């Protein structure tokens, strides 16, 4: 099992307003700047502690994640850490020019000496509102964008693209990625009907914030579809992103978390009618009573064993949770690295 540190780059100042979009006036300028410094420190710590990769993601208009452009933060990371892989999980294609995304990731790959990993996503339901996107089309737009980016990374000659959602007459990306033919690419399997695309295109499968039973179901489907396409995924082809909190004992972990919960439906703070309209063809969002991984080292190792049995080979863990301070996150990371990582290597 490989361990990834998901750097959410969450706003360092106090905030209790769950509205989305969150009014910019609530962003204290100095706290915004401190967020970036702390997030970079945390990234350096993750590299020192032996995490296999550090990841960033793209979200908009909210203090939960201050990297609307994950490429910029990933670019800074490439110049600070020299060991761990840098996972950009991931650019939101319905909100992007995919050729630009291909160019920026190629830059990151050469800047990082070939340590980039990428997952292309369609965004959370509310994010279609950011730069205009039709919620009923985001999956198809994302899949076409993936095909275009893969072509842009591998085609030896300049080319045009006559797509359904994208149309370019001149594409010729420089620099080429250092990794050949291109960085490892993951595709979301959060909605069951997205899984066959990942398998058919021989991409990795990325899952997030779902119960163990759903993870197993998606991985089984992925393997079935991959077999139909004539290949067999390895453990490293399946990544799972989640929240985790590790303390010295189960009791301490329970105390730190308290009664705080994460309700993905409430994150968007929208009324039912609006949410229904935005959900399009997506799976239901989950209420999370506690972090996916939770407890003292022994309990967490057991939970990771179950995750491995479900078919996951790479964990992408965020140490954030409502009520958990920055200092508590650092302690949790250190505890995880010293007491858990050595025991999960062989899983």
């Amino acid at each position, binding site marked *: 099992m490989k361990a990834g540190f998901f750097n959410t780059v969450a706003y360092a100042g106090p905030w209790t307003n769950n509205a989305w979009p969150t009014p910019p006036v609530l962003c204290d300028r100095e706290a915004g700047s401190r967020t970036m410094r702390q997030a970079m420190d945390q990234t350096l710590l993750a590299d020192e502690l032996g995490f296999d990769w550090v990841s960033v993601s793209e979200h908009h208009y909210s203090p939960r994640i201050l990297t609307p452009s994950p490429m910029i933060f990933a670019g800074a990371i490439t110049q600070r850490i020299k060991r761990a892989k840098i996972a950009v999980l991931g650019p939101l294609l319905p909100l992007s020019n995919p050729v630009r995304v291909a160019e920026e990731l190629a830059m990151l790959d050469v800047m990082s000496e070939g340590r980039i990993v990428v997952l292309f996503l369609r965004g959370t339901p509310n994010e279609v509102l950011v730069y205009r996107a039709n919620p009923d089309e985001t999956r198809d737009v994302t899949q*076409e964008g993936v*095909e*275009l980016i893969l*072509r842009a990374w591998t*085609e*030896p*000659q*300049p*080319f*045009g*693209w*006559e*797509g*359904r959602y*994208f149309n370019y*007459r*001149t594409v010729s990306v420089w620099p080429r990625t250092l990794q050949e033919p291109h960085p490892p690419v993951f595709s979301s399997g959060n909605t069951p009907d997205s899984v066959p695309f990942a398998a058919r295109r021989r991409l990795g499968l990325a899952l997030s914030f779902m119960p163990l039973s759903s993870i197993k179901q998606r991985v089984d489907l992925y393997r079935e579809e991959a077999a139909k396409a004539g290949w067999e995924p390895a453990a490293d082809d399946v990544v799972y992103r989640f929240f985790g909190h590790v303390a010295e004992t189960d009791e301490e972990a329970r105390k730190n978390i308290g009664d705080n919960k994460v309700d993905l439906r409430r994150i968007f703070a929208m009324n039912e009618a609006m949410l229904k309209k935005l959900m399009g063809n997506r799976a239901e969002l989950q209420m999370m009573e506690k972090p996916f991984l939770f407890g003292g080292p022994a309990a967490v190792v057991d939970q990771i064993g179950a995750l491995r049995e479900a078919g996951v080979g790479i964990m992408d863990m965020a140490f954030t949770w409502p009520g958990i301070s920055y200092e508590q996150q650092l302690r949790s990371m250190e505890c995880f690295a010293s007491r858990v990582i050595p025991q999960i290597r062989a899983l």
Partner: protein
Amino acid sequence: MADATPAEMKPGTLEADGLRVHYLEAGSGEPVVVFPDRDGELFDSLLGKLAGCNRVIAFDLSAGGTITPRDVAAELSQGLPRLGVDRYAVMGVAHGAALALAQAIVAPEQIDKLILLSPRFAQSAEAVANLAQVKAPTLVLVGTRDTSGSVEAGRLCREKIRVCHLSFVYDAGQAIAADRLEACADSIADFLEQGEQFIIFRESQMIRP
């Protein structure tokens, strides 16, 4: 262009010195000579759309025989002026690409544009050398799901032909025009109208004045 009413194709026969070939014709405007695939399929809907703005003449050479593409080209370059076609675009579909390429090489003074859809031709040293002789601006369309060898042929065209644009038609297989009719028809129409300048988009990006 894509909204033009598909025109009805009318049959005709062209007799050159040693060749008697049937063709289907529709539309009026700048002429486009088409060589369909060797199975004789004429891609009716695509040609119908193109005939909304162009005079389309599709030759049926499915009967085959031993005559070479160069010989066909030599005969047609003699015969086409008798149909009032002196300067024209030529389009080859799949195996018809070899005939279209031969036409472009044998009668360069007649050909103002070359279009290849899902091109398939033997990539011999001679064929590769011939590509360098093509003078007409060229458009090659290949489907992203095409595994017949068209992608490699298209890349070779892009590399060897002096002015060649290779475009991938997303989610199309070998039957490219059947899979993504509008995508093919629109890009071909743009190319027929603007030649190599078809890469310049002219649609306004203004949302409201």
